[in-house]
């Protein structure tokens, strides 16, 4: 008589370091073996891994490494586009800056250099002796700027003209005994103001607005909108002024 059949050995697996809540309820059936119930205890966790189970189609198409590869590709493409765009913008800035330098800054600095020579080398001369030279240079600067107004319409020509005229009038109204050196400080102030105005335009208006049209347009719209709101709030009337003229 056969003795009592020994119970089928249980494939006990060493407990793994997981949280007690993560437990397999049954052991996976192995090939050629009948499914065997697994006795689990609260302290014993069994890892279940089906061998011949097929993954879902979505998982097969986009697993984690595929997703990472796709993200890497997108980041690479964006980086490439950004690098190209930055290089292009950089080149445009360089071209615009050079053009502005050649057309505007260099001739005006050359004009001021003529006046610098007078103020440096003829300090002791009577101011009245140099009226003609000063008037000629300042006229030349204004004339040059007015010609550039069609290219750079936002340039503060009126402000520069006023400053030059103010200094010119002051210099012409000198006392007969006054010397060139007496007007150096006023000349230096005028020159600084004019050049400041040009640099301000070049950096803040010309390059920014012309090279980054969407940002520049957005900023102008935002600024104008705020001003209009303030005016409307103060007066109770909605202003209907036209937006500033765009650069050509």
């Amino acid at each position, binding site marked *: 008589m056969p003795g009592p059949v020994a119970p089928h050995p249980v494939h006990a697996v060493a407990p793994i370091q997981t949280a007690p809540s993560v437990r397999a309820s049954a052991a996976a059936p192995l090939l050629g073996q009948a499914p065997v119930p697994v006795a689990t205890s609260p302290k014993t966790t069994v890892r279940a891994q089906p061998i011949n189970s097929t993954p879902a189609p979505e998982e097969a198409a986009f697993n984690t490494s595929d997703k990472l590869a796709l993200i890497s590709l997108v980041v690479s493409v964006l980086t490439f586009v950004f690098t190209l765009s930055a290089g292009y913008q950089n080149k445009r800035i360089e071209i615009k800056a050079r053009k502005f330098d050649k057309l505007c800054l260099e001739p005006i600095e050359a004009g001021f250099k003529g006046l610098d020579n007078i103020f440096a080398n003829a300090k002791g001369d009577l101011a*009245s002796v140099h*009226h*003609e030279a000063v*008037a*000629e240079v*300042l*006229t*030349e600067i*204004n*004339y040059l700027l*007015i*010609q550039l*107004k069609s290219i750079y319409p936002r340039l503060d020509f*009126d402000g520069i*003209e006023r400053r*030059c*005229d103010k200094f*010119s*009038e002051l210099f*012409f*109204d000198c006392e*007969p005994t006054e010397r060139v050196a007496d007007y150096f400080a006023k000349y230096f102030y005028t020159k600084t103001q004019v050049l400041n105005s040009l640099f301000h335009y070049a950096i803040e208006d010309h390059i920014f607005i012309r090279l980054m049209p969407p940002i520049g347009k957005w900023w102008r719209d935002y600024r104008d909108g705020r001003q209009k709101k303030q005016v409307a709030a103060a007066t109770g009337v909605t202003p209907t002024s036209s937006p500033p003229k765009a650069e050509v």
Partner: protein
Amino acid sequence: MSITCVIDLSKLVIPNKTDSISGRGFGEGIAEREKVMQHLEQNDKFIMRIDSKKVKAINDSFIKGFFSEVFRTLKSRQRVREVFELDASDNFKRLFEKNWAILEAINAAA
């Protein structure tokens, strides 16, 4: 019937005292004194005389003051040239031309 008026800018300087002409207000005042706008309405012409021996320099402000009203009426340099004849040295002619260009641009912008 149109006439030709002579404006002698040399008379604006005082020999041995001043040899330059300056000031926007002064220019406007001279234009008013010479009744420039009234003459323009009559289609009169002008000769502006500048003696280089007496007048050494003219300031931009004076020219702008003198011609500001004129440009509001005549608008272009070409029209101003037709009405105002300069009897002066080449230096002064260049100075006036440049200031007329500036005034033309200012009026065009306004």
